[in-house]
């Protein structure tokens, strides 16, 4: 049995999950900051 597909799948899954884990807060921060900026502009605070 070739072990290569298992090794590639293990590293592929790990890369996808860890990449998603790293990008999720960046995207959330962008969205949150733009929401707060929009609210500040709207209310003139």
């Amino acid at each position, binding site marked *: *049995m070739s*072990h*290569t597909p*298992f*090794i590639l*799948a*293990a*590293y592929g*899954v*790990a890369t996808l*999950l*860890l990449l*998603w*884990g*790293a990008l*999720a*807060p*960046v995207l*959330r*921060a962008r969205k*949150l*900051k733009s929401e*707060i*900026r929009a*609210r*500040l502009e709207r209310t003139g*605070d």
Partner: protein
Amino acid sequence: MNPIMKFIHLMGSPPWFYQFSGRLIPWLWGLFVVLAACGLYLGLVKAPPDYLQGESARIMYIHVPSAWMSMMIYALMAVMGFVGLVWHVRIAEILAISSAPIGALFTAVALASGSLWGRPTWGTYWVWDARLTSELVLLFLYLGVIGLYSAFDEPRKAARAASLLALVGLVNLPIIHYSVTWWNTLHQGSSIGASGSSIHPSMLWPLLIMALATKFYYAANLLSRARIRLIEQDQRKNWVRELLQEGTA
């Protein structure tokens, strides 16, 4: 005041924590990338295949560090939760709850990579073995902490409830660690312990480098998530308003 106490006091100030962590995060990501690149090169290219398991043992370089991180993050989450519960330190509460998704990710990676290692080694992707089952329980505990936190509208109440659950779940950590000793498991016993390691240095070094890399991933990711929670909770406070108006956030 000694420098350590001064640092702890400064960490309690949201604007200071936000600025300090913002400066630290790029360095932590940089160290993670460099160490992960070295560890993967040594593990996947330079290290020899295992004499018994062959090439599939290369999965160890992601599986073992992820499994270690899944337990370490849980322990840290419980400690930070305890600090938040006892001393009402908001940053500790934020760090505790921000740790949960990262811990869940590492647990998922450990379970998935372990399953993919199990197929060529044991002939099956999954068995209800004590080590595998207790690690799965750890994933459910992380999901429980995240779910419980999300169930409350008030973040401080949510953090207290989630911290309590995290503390109760601590009992699972020794079960995971000693499962291979207490029960007759299919999962192999520890190859690295207090008395040393039975792994050849050519395979041990990439493993240790990857273990170090995952620590930097956790630190960078934790601070990124904590900064968001801080802004989210303090969005009506002056320091966030000033930060966003200056455009330095």
